[in-house]
């Protein structure tokens, strides 16, 4: 199991950041992702594998400043 934004989610062997986003239905273009407090850049979503028991955060970024 992993935690995504504090909620438990089933973990599968080889699960990538992109797999997690697809499964959660997070299809926003503007999102930032951390795994165990480390930022994963956008161009690494397809290749970065999420380890079991990881604490993942994925948050949508909004305009305005």
């Amino acid at each position, binding site marked *: 199991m992993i935690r995504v934004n504090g909620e438990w989610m089933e973990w599968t062997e080889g699960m990538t950041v992109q797999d997690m986003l697809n499964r959660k239905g997070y299809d926003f273009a*503007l999102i*930032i992702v*951390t795994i165990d407090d*480390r*930022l994963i850049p956008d161009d690494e979503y397809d290749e970065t594998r999420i380890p079991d028991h990881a604490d993942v955060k994925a*948050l949508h970024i*909004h*305009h*305005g*400043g």
Partner: protein
Amino acid sequence: MSANVDIFERNVADQTEALRDATVGIAGCGGLGSNIAVSLVRAGIGRLILVDFDRVEPSNLNRQHFFLSDIGQLKVEALSRHLTAINPDVRIQSHPERLDADRTPVVFREADLLLEAFDRAESKKWLIEAWCVAYPDRPIICGNGLSGAGDTESLHVLKMGPITLCGDGRTDMTIGLSAPRVAIVAAMQANEAVAYFLRRHLARRTATEREREIR
């Protein structure tokens, strides 16, 4: 003119010492950035690196720390003047340029901490990624969702590793931007920065005291 008076007399304990040697970067000097800078200079920040390519327009005055007499001037230049009018001893490095992912680590190399103060979400995203890849151990404090008016209770702080997000996490600027709500989020970002430097100062002092004890 130099400040011959102690403007930081009413600061929180240790705050003046914690901020005196601190350098922050501010990416964008609009609604968030100008208000963050004013807060941090009043708090006693030692050094600022300001970046913004834009000039002051009349539509900025509903929320940004500028005046009618600033219209047409570069934001970094007008803001620097206002900041040194508060504290003449603050050191400011201004970059009137359009930042990109490649320039980010170069321009902010000497910053202990970065404050994200851009308008567009696309820019926020590449800034966060460029900073965290270049300096994974240095914090970045961002504004995320600050449009509209009222709804103060929805404003909050979220932490994800080195990234701190301040705002409601949902509103977009298509609904308009209002001075108080923008200033609250700017103050939340500045407050998080002050808290970081206070923690760092106290941790360093504890380490020094321990070293003395060991000797």
